[in-house]
């Protein structure tokens, strides 16, 4: 009797312990499953991110790279990379990366677009000596310099700012640190091309407008038309631009261009030097503005690229003695953008620029003293936000791609 009771007790207790331990075991297993699942998702995501970074690096090093990867073992899982051309005309590409780890798959999609110098609000190879970005300086769009980035009393940069070299503070980080509202990176090497302006000739020969064989070309944009002459005293001749330059490129070979007017449509003017220091320079004789100001009408399609192999100068003349309005993206391959006779010309008001400046060497537009401007211009530079997504025709490109969208 007592033997049976003991047996029943042992069996009963064993059953209770089994049920309780099973419950505890289940809870533990589910907790571990939960942890493992989160871990697997995290690792698969990391693999996909790594794949996207590898693909981006390949595209930056070789813009023609399109081979992708298939089932490559990585970090205990696998990654697949596929490259697709979404828009052959605009050369928009998308990389799709899948990272797989123990049954979990994460996907990252990255879009790339050709990078144009016109997207910069400010670009320079050389800052032209020890010039500091100061408290009164604000740059409204992307910024890059190949030189040192010198900051004094918190200049403001609304777009992404990058430098090839490094950031130098006038006194200390606390006193001078710039406000980077669009991010900051250093060690970014983005050189200007050596012959982008002279290479425009081939494009102009194809379907653009070309001036050659003259020392100087005087150009006046007049809406759809372009008036031109070769001597100051000559009468103007005229081209109807949509038929004279259907691809939007106007090229002046080995000469000096003097320009002004109102631009309707999308045009780039290129001016080469033929290795002559006095040529390949564009003078702005008066306002050069859009027919439709995009700040007033955001649907404006007017764009202008002003591309000189050497310099772009604001002419020292009477029309430019009380402000100058410039709408367009200025590109100076071997020189810079400045004001003619900047240190001797009278106080001339403001440079109201809507666009960007891409230059080899920073140049002066005036002189300043403790009481303010002593000669030349004050700067009122406003970035044309449309340049983030649009570019004047055949504006020099960086030769590479940039990431425009990242989905994960």
């Amino acid at each position, binding site marked *: 009797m007592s033997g049976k009771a003991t047996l029943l007790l042992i069996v009963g207790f064993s059953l209770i312990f089994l049920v309780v331990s099973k419950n505890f075991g289940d*809870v533990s297993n589910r907790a571990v499953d939960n942890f493992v699942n989160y871990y697997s998702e995290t690792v698969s995501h990391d693999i996909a991110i790594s794949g996207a970074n590898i693909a981006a690096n390949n595209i930056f090093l070789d813009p023609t790279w399109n081979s992708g990867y298939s089932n490559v073992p990585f970090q205990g899982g696998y990654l697949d990379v596929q490259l697709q051309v979404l828009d052959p005309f605009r050369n928009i590409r998308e990389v799709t990366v899948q990272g797989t780890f123990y049954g979990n798959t994460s996907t990252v999609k990255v879009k790339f677009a050709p990078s144009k110098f016109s997207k910069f609000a400010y670009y320079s190879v050389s800052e032209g000596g020890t010039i500091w970005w100061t408290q009164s300086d604000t740059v409204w769009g992307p910024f890059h310099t190949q030189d040192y980035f010198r900051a004094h009393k918190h200049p403001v940069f609304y777009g992404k700012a990058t430098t090839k070299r490094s950031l130098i503070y006038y006194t200390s980080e606390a006193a001078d640190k710039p406000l980077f509202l669009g991010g900051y*990176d250093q060690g970014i090497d983005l050189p200007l091309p050596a012959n982008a302006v002279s290479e425009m000739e081939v494009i102009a020969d194809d379907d653009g407008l070309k001036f050659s064989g003259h020392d100087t070309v005087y150009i006046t944009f007049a809406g759809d038309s372009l008036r031109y002459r070769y001597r100051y005293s000559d009468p103007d001749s005229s081209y109807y631009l949509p038929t004279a330059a259907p691809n939007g490129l106007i090229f002046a070979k080995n000469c000096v261009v003097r320009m002004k007017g109102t631009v309707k449509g999308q045009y780039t003017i290129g001016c080469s030097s033929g290795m002559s220091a006095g040529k390949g320079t564009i003078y702005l004789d008066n306002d050069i503005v859009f027919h439709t100001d995009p700040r007033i009408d955001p649907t404006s399609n007017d764009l202008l690229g002003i591309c000189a192999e050497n310099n772009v100068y604001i002419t020292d003349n009477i029309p430019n003695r009380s402000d100058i309005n410039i709408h367009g993206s200025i590109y100076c391959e071997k020189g810079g953008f400045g004001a003619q006779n900047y240190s001797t010309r009278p106080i001339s008001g403001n440079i109201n620029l809507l666009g960007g400046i891409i230059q080899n060497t920073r140049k002066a537009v005036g002189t300043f003293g403790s009481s303010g401007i002593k000669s030349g211009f004050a700067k009122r530079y406003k970035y044309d936000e449309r340049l983030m997504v649009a570019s004047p025709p055949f504006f020099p490109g960086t030769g590479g791609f940039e990431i425009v969208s*990242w989905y*994960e």
Partner: protein
Amino acid sequence: MGFSTMLDIMGSIIIGGILMMITWRLSDAATAKTYNNSGELSLQQNLATVAQILEHDFRKIGYCSDWTKFPDPSKAIIYADTSEIIYVTDLDLDADMDSIRYYLGPTSELYGTPNPRDRVLYRVINQETPKPSNLGVTAFKLAYFDASGDEIPTPVTVPGLIASLEINVAVETVAAYDTAYSSAFWRQIRLVARNLRNR
């Protein structure tokens, strides 16, 4: 009935009593352990869910399926404070930007739960009515860092300065045996929403 039988009965009663006490104690302990372990499991699942949702959403700050419609992602963060953030992203991939607002409700909202510290973490898309969902969140703390990696004081007056975020989430069990609440903590030390650094 002899002495030895009496001794057997008394011994049985004593041993049976001890066993009953053990069983009773076991039942109590098993109930407590089951309650707390199940709570911890829920806690862990809640934390993993919160982490996955936050990672999913925050990684998309500034994303737009048509990049030309939102070319400057540095403008994506609209408001940033210690426990509240508002930003835009293309959530449904229709190339229209949606706003997402995360914020933590007050403890008084969850008076129905035994835990006095749990709060509702709200996720509000566009102008939708906030929908509460209690995952036992007791802390949701955000820290913001600029491009140099320096922390930005909150509330952030210039959201464009933000280059990366730190996300801290603490969750507790909403109910516990003998008010022994379990807690768990998740931190994303530096979440860099990649679109903030584009262009």
